[in-house]
């Protein structure tokens, strides 16, 4: 899996270089290629970070969908939080609920936890094995299965396609 690690980190560093320079002259691209090759060899020849990503067209397609879904959820989260903050009665109903995930890869779990943190009224406090403990600003279901259905499912279906 070393090749996969190297190539993914190479692509990420190269993309960052191009975005920083925002010019596509030959010398800049050549310097970028050399630098990203060196950096990915130096720092990512032993790391395990990207070894769980599937590099298929389908996974790429689902990554795009995931980003789209995530942005919509982020905007929904903000409208929701704004409503709660500005309403005079302060309608909150907080609590800590437990949800369960079926994802195995560490990276996918990290992304899941981060996405939950940025979506409406939910915030990951702790992860233990398959369980995520989530602070929910408006507890609708305290039962594990129902909470999982409403909080985790929308992200998990996409993440499953991207990671093993």
């Amino acid at each position, binding site marked *: 899996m070393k090749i996969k690690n190297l190539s993914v980190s190479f692509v990420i560093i190269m993309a960052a270089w191009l975005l*920083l320079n925002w010019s596509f002259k030959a010398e800049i691209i050549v310097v970028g290629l050399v630098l990203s090759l060196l950096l990915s060899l130096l720092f990512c020849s032993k790391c395990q970070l990207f070894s769980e990503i599937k590099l298929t067209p389908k996974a790429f397609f689902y990554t795009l969908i995931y980003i789209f879904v995530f942005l919509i959820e*982020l905007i929904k989260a903000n409208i929701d939080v704004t409503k709660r*903050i500005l309403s005079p009665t302060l309608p*909150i109903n907080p609590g800590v609920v437990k949800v369960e995930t079926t994802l195995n890869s560490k990276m996918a779990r990290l992304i899941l936890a981060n996405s939950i943190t*940025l979506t409406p009224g939910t915030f*990951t406090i702790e992860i*233990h*094995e398959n*369980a995520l403990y989530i602070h929910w600003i408006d507890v609708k279901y305290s039962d*594990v299965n129902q909470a999982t259905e409403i909080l985790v499912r929308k992200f998990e279906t996409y993440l499953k396609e991207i990671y093993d």
Partner: protein
Amino acid sequence: MSPDIFKEGFRMEIIQYLGGALLIMGSLSLLIASIGLIRMPDVYNRVQTGTKASTLGAILSFLGIGLLSIENWSESNWIGRVIILIIFIIITNPVSSHILMRAAYVMKIPFTKDTKVDKLKEDIDNKVLEEPKDE
């Protein structure tokens, strides 16, 4: 992108207005986040409002700055840096707030009285998992 597309003045103006609008929306978002920090009853809800609204506020403000900085499309190199900033904010903001929240939980800062359930405490009491410790 050919620079000719944006040579007409009114297109430039539209981009400027769009940037300004995004900047205002971002500032409003940050304002709401700070109102939320004052109004919410306990530390957990405060972290919640602080994270979400400030993430979107920062994203919108950066996008606005990026659009306002465009004078000549082919030479402007701010927009790429702004995209990198946004990616870093989306990755790091939830992590740092999660650390704050978890630290508050480890220090046993009390929840507000309205809190309905605390499954984490139940599971610690039932010995499903160990109590989270200061690491």
